[in-house]
């Protein structure tokens, strides 16, 4: 489709790290069926706090799948702290941009990483500086369109 960059199309057509992790260190699901995008991120984090493996599943449009895929690439091999710094901006830039109506998809990718990290922190009873409890419904932030 003409609306997406080549990188978005590449990550949509051949998404990286699709799947599940059994007994993950952390798993987070964000988005909702109402807005049409749901992302689930699984993390496998070792004792040094390094993300050894990451998998995702996404129900959503091309941009949602591509941002999930890119987000997994960006956090893989990183420490928890570094992963926290992967913002939606970083995901978008790595994909050579997204159409304006799809920016919320990249926010969802950031949220999914945070939600998985939050789950990891909860399970291990640790506090990760700068990490807030995830908001599940990002669509609440969107404003109604006037016509």
């Amino acid at each position, binding site marked *: *489709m003409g609306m*997406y960059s080549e990188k978005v*199309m590449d990550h*949509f*057509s051949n*998404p990286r790290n*699709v799947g*599940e992790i059994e007994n993950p260190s952390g798993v987070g*699901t964000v988005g*909702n*069926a*109402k*807005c*049409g*995008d*749901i*992302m*689930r991120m699984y993390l496998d984090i070792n004792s040094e706090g390094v993300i050894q493996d990451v998998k*995702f*599943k*996404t*129900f*959503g*449009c*091309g*941009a*949602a*799948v591509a941002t999930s895929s890119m987000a997994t690439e960006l956090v893989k091999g990183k420490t928890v702290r570094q992963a926290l710094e992967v913002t939606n901006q970083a995901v978008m830039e790595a994909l050579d941009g997204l159409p304006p*109506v*799809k920016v*919320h998809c990249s926010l969802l990718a950031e949220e999914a990483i945070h939600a998985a990290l939050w789950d990891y922190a909860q399970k291990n009873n640790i506090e990760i500086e700068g990490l807030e409890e995830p908001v599940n419904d990002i*669509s609440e932030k*969107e404003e109604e*369109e006037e*016509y």
Partner: protein
Amino acid sequence: MSKRIYLDNAATTRTADEVLAEMLPYFQENYGNPSAVYGFAAESKQAVDVARKQTADLIGAKTEEIYFTGGGSESDNWALKAAAEAYGDKGKHIITSKIEHHAILHTCAYLERHGFEVTYLNVDENGKVLLDELKEAIRPDTILISVMAANNEIGTIQPIAEIGKIAKEHGILFHTDAVQAYGHIPLHVDEMNIDMLSASGHKFYGPKGIGFLYIRKGVKIRSFLHGGAQERNRRAGTLNVPGIVGMGKAAALAQKAMTERMRKETAMRDHLIDRILSEIPYSRLNGDRKDRLPNNANFCFRFVEGESMLILLDQLGVCASSGSACTSGSLDPSHVLLAIGLPHEIAHGSLRISLSEQNTMEEIDFVVDELSGIVQKLRRMSPLYEDFVKQNQERS
């Protein structure tokens, strides 16, 4: 990508060869303004007259009841706003349905901001307006009923004749948005008691940028565009002669070929529906199985999202459409799919396939074969499918 398979004819159609051929002389040979006095203009004036008759004949209208416009949206806007203005003294209540095109719904919202009250009728699970609910909605101050002839997304054909009868019995104007129906299925303004009807040229193999509003003689609605005496003082602007000629020709072709087209399209449509429902699990047909446009099929595939399907189909050269939020630019999925009672996550997984007589059974088979794999691929990466499978495992 070897060959394009175009299955989005509800969005627009390819202008027919005969239509284009008919239009071409009116760009460079007979380019005269039909409103002019000199003999040179007579050619284009006469062409407009012929086209007006062709356009009128298809719905049993008189030529002086056809008003050419810039398309379906303009016709819808004009019908509603002008009727509200003309009959506002009599009442401020309008009845429409929840599954109208946005050209109707947004115009109704506009009228609501200008002192009108609008009742939005529910539809049943197949997308049909409930006649009892319509009757109950009628008030002494109801001035207009506007219900589409056939739905653009799910293809359901409304009981227009019954609605027209009810409107007539109550002395209420009846407008129908027939953009998807005109040229595709039989319509008759007298038999169906239609007072106003909107249509658009490019939906039935005519050109884009031309449409018309049928206004029954005696309906006193005024001009929408001011600035000239064209169209019996009701629609200013130099006539789009090539467009009008093209739409007229398309109407004439439809008149001649409608039965055969309907037969061909219905056969392909039913083959498509039967194969998809039997071969792709967790799929459903949206819209009425029987009372539906011959060229429309609309499905939902659970656990997958519409735009993703469209992109994967596009990579195979297949053009289709979806009512998912992602394709509409808003966060909500199609208002039509929600109105027939689908939950959001299922409504997001819709796919509309709209045929033309140019399509073939081979194309349909190719699409079903590929779609099966596409849906599987997307389900493998769907968290909703994952949850569904796990729930089933737990149960068993």
